[in-house]
C-alpha cells in the first residue's frame, strides 16, 4: 500500500522548471487574459486579499468606536462603516474566499482534469467580481451606504440617504460572478472527472464545493431579482415593498433571506471541505465516516433553503411560520454536528502532528463548535425573541464565519501554499499566527455573547455605559486578532522569494493535486491520471511518495 491514489505518475525533480507561473509568459496581458484556472485563482486570491483588508479596516474602526459608550465617530459615519464592513466581507470576501481561490485552483487538480469546464466563464466571473468591487468602493468613496448589508425596506428603498442603488448594482454584479462560478463547478464536477474518479472517490473538498455551488446557482438569482426590485422601488418611488403604497416589507425579508440564509452555508461549506482534507493528512488516518461527511454537506445545502425565516421571528411573521422554521432550523443543526463528531473521531488512534494547517484546523473545529452550538440558541424561538438583533447574534455568526471560515481559509492557504507557489512557508511564524488568531478571536467575540444577552443591540454607535467593560475586552481582542491576520501577509510574502523549495508533496498527502509537480504545469498533469482508490488512504509513517 502506498500513499498515492494514482497510477502512472512518475516522480519529478524537486524544482519544476515548467509550471503554470512561467508557461504562457509572465506579462500582465498573459495574466489578465488567462484562461488557466490556476492563474485565475491567483487573481482571485490577490483581489479578495485587498477586500479582506478593506473590510478589516472597517472592522478595526468599528471596534475603535465602541471603546467608549458615546462613540468616537458620528452616527452617519459609523452606520456607513458597518454597512461597508458587512457588504465587503460577505460578498467580496467570504462568499468567494475558498471557492474562488482554492476551489478554482484545486477542483480540476483534485478530479484529474486539465481545467474547469468553461475557462472563459471563469475569467468573466473574475472580471465581474472586480468590476463589482470597484463599483462598491466607488459608492463608498463618494459617500457610502448606511442601510446595513441587509438592505431592509422601506428604509433602503425610501428613507436612506446613501448611495443605495450603486451598492445594489455592485452586489448584483458580484452575484452574477458567483452564479457563473457555481455553474462552472457543477458542470466540471459532473463532466470532467478523470477515469476511475467515481463520486465516492472524490475528496470531501470537491463535494463541499459542489454543495456550495448548488446554493450559489439556485439562491443567488433570487437575491438578484430582489435587489432589482429594491432599486426600482428607490428610483421610481413605487414598489411592492413599501407599506405606504400597499406593499409588504416582509416580502422583501422573505426574498432576501431565501438567498441570504443559504448564503451563510456558502460561507461555511467550503471550510468544511478544507478541514476534511487537513485533518486526515495530519492525523495520518482516513477521514472517519466519509460518506456521512459527504452527505451531510449535501443535506446542509438542501435543508439550508428551508430555514430562512428564522431571521424573522420578531419581524411579524405568523406564529405558525415561526414554529415551522424553528423546527427546520433544529433539523439542520444535525448534519453540522455530524461533521464535528467525525473530525474528532478521525483524530482517534491517529499519528497526529501539529503543523500550522492542523493548528488552524483544530482552531476551526473549536470555534465552529461554539458557533454551531450558539446556533441552537438563536434557532430557539423564545430565546431568539430576546437576542435577535443583539450582539449575541453578531458573535454567533462571527464564530461561524470568521472563527470558522477564515480559519479554514488560512488553514487551506498554508496547506496548499507549497502546491501553489512551490515554496514552504516559515513554520514557526505560521504557528504563532494560528495561535494569535485563535486567542484573539475568542477574546474579541466571546464577550459579545454576554453583551448580547445583556441586551446590547447591534448597529449601535453608542451604548449604555454599563456595557463598556465587555466592549473594551472585545476591542482589545480585536487588536490581537488584527495582528494575527497581518502576520501571514508578511511571512507568506517573504516565503514567495525566500521560502524553501517544497517538492511536489511536502505533507506526504494523498489526493491527485499532490501527484503533480509544485507549482503544477499549465495543463496540470503530464500524463492524465487514472484513479484506483478511495481518498485519504493514509498510513502511519509518511513515506516517500511512490515507490
Amino acid at each position, binding site marked *: 500500500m502506498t500513499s498515492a491514489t494514482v497510477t502512472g505518475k512518475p516522480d519529478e525533480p524537486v524544482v519544476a522548471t515548467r509550471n503554470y507561473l512561467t508557461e504562457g509568459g509572465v506579462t500582465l496581458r498573459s495574466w489578465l487574459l488567462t484562461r488557466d484556472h490556476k492563474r485565475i485563482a491567483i487573481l482571485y486570491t490577490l483581489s479578495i486579499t485587498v477586500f479582506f483588508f478593506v473590510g478589516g479596516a472597517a472592522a478595526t474602526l468599528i471596534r475603535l468606536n465602541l471603546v467608549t459608550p458615546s462613540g468616537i465617530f458620528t452616527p452617519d459615519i459609523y452606520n456607513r462603516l458597518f454597512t461597508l464592513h458587512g457588504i465587503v466581507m460577505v460578498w467580496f470576501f467570504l462568499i468567494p474566499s475558498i471557492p474562488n481561490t482554492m476551489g478554482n485552483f484545486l477542483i*480540476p487538480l483534485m478530479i484529474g*482534469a*486539465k*481545467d*474547469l*469546464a*468553461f*475557462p472563459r466563464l471563469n475569467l468573466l466571473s473574475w472580471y465581474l467580481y472586480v468590476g463589482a468591487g470597484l463599483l462598491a468602493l466607488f459608492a463608498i468613496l463618494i459617500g457610502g451606504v448606511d442601510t446595513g448589508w441587509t438592505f431592509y425596506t422601506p428604509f433602503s428603498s425610501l428613507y436612506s440617504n446613501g448611495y443605495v442603488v450603486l451598492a445594489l448594482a455592485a452586489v448584483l454584479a458580484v452575484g452574477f460572478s458567483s*452564479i457563473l462560478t457555481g*455553474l*462552472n463547478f*457543477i*458542470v466540471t464536477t*459532473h*463532466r*470532467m472527472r478523470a477515469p476511475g474518479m467515481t463520486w465516492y472517490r472524490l475528496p470531501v473538498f470537491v463535494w463541499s464545493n459542489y454543495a456550495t455551488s448548488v446554493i450559489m*446557482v*439556485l*439562491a*443567488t*438569482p*433570487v437575491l*438578484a*431579482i*430582489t435587489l*432589482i*426590485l429594491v432599486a*426600482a422601488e428607490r*428610483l*421610481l*418611488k*413605487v*414598489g*411592492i415593498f413599501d407599506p405606504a*403604497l*400597499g*406593499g*409588504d416589507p416582509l*416580502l422583501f425579508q*422573505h*426574498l432576501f433571506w*431565501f438567498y441570504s440564509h443559504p448564503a451563510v452555508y456558502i460561507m461555511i461549506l467550503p471550510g468544511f471541505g478544507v478541514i476534511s482534507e487537513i485533518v486526515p493528512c495530519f492525523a495520518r488516518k482516513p477521514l472517519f465516516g466519509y460518506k456521512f461527511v459527504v452527505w451531510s454537506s449535501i443535506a446542509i445545502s438542501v435543508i439550508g433553503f428551508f430555514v430562512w425565516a428564522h431571521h424573522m421571528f420578531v419581524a411579524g411573521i405568523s406564529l405558525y411560520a415561526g414554529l415551522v422554521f424553528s423546527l427546520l432550523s433544529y433539523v439542520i443543526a444535525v448534519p453540522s454536528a455530524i461533521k464535528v463528531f467525525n473530525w474528532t473521531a478521525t483524530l482517534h488512534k491517529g499519528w497526529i502532528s501539529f503543523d500550522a494547517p492542523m493548528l488552524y484546523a483544530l482552531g476551526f473545529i473549536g470555534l465552529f463548535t461554539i458557533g454551531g452550538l450558539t446556533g441552537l440558541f438563536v434557532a430557539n424561538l423564545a430565546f431568539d425573541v430576546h437576542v435577535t438583533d443583539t450582539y449575541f447574534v453578531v458573535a454567533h455568526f462571527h464564530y461561524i464565519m470568521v472563527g470558522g471560515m477564515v480559519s479554514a481559509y488560512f488553514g487551506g492557504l498554508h496547506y496548499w501554499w507549497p502546491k501553489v507557489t512551490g515554496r514552504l512557508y516559515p513554520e514557526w511564524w505560521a504557528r504563532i499566527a494560528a495561535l494569535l488568531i485563535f486567542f484573539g478571536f475568542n477574546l474579541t467575540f466571546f464577550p459579545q455573547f454576554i453583551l448580547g444577552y445583556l441586551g446590547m443591540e447591534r448597529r449601535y454607535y453608542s451604548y449604555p455605559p454599563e456595557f463598556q467593560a465587555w466592549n473594551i475586552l472585545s476591542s482589545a481582542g480585536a487588536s490581537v486578532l488584527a495582528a494575527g491576520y497581518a502576520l501571514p501577509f508578511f511571512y507568506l510574502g517573504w516565503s514567495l522569494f525566500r521560502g524553501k523549495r517544497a517538492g511536489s508533496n511536502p505533507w506526504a498527502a494523498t489526493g491527485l493535486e499532490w501527484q503533480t509537480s509544485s507549482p503544477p504545469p499549465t*495543463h496540470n498533469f503530464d500524463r*492524465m491520471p487514472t484513479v484506483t482508490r478511495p481518498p485519504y488512504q493514509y498510513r502511519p509513517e509518511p513515506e516517500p511518495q511512490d515507490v
Partner: protein
Amino acid sequence: MSEAGPLPRPEPQYATTDQQAEAATFGMWVFLATEILFFGGLLLAYTWLRASHPAGVAEAGRHTKIVIGSVNTLVLLTSSLTMALAVHAAEQGRRKALTRLLAVTALLGLLFLGLKGYEYHGEWTEHLVPGLNFHEDGPHARTIELFYFLYFLLTGIHGIHVTIGIGLIVWLALRARRGSFSSGYYTPVEVTGLYWHFVDVVWIFLYPLIYLVGRSGP
C-alpha cells in the same frame, strides 16, 4: 446527405468533442435552473400582490392589451417552432435551411419586441407607467400601479432575455452561413435553442398572469 463540415478539435480542457458538447448542454440546463429562480422571485411578488388584492389585480388585468399580448404569444410559439426546426436542420447538416430558419427565428423575435414596444407606447400614453407617468383614479389605483410595476419588470426582464436571444441567433446565423456548423458539430445551435425555448416557456406563464386576469369579470 450533409455538407462536409469542419469537425473542430475540442477545447484543450476536454478529452473529446462529445464531452465538450455534453458539458455545454448540461451547463445551459444549470443556467436555466438559475433562470427559473430569477423569475421565481418576481412571480412570488406577483402571487403576493394577487392574493392580497384580488379585485385590484383583476381590474389592472383588464387594462392590459390582450390583442397584442395574444399575438405576441403566437409569435413566440412560432419562433420556438422555427428554432426547433433550425436545430433539426443543424443535426442533419443542412446549412442553407439552418441559416434561413435561424434568420426567421430572429425576425420573429424582432417582431415580438416591436409589438412589445408598441404596447409600451400605448401604456405610456394611457398613463400606466408607475413612477414616471402614472395617473389612475378609483379605489384600486394603488394596486393597479403595483401591478404595472411588476408588469414592466416582468416583461422588461423577459424582453432583455429576448434581445440577448436575438443577438445570439443572429451570430449563429452568420456563422452558419459561413459554414461553421456541421452534423458533427452544432452544439452552439443546440444550446442557444434551449435558451430560446426557455424564454418562450417564461412567456407562456406570463401570458395568463398578465393578460388573462379578470377577463371574466365585469
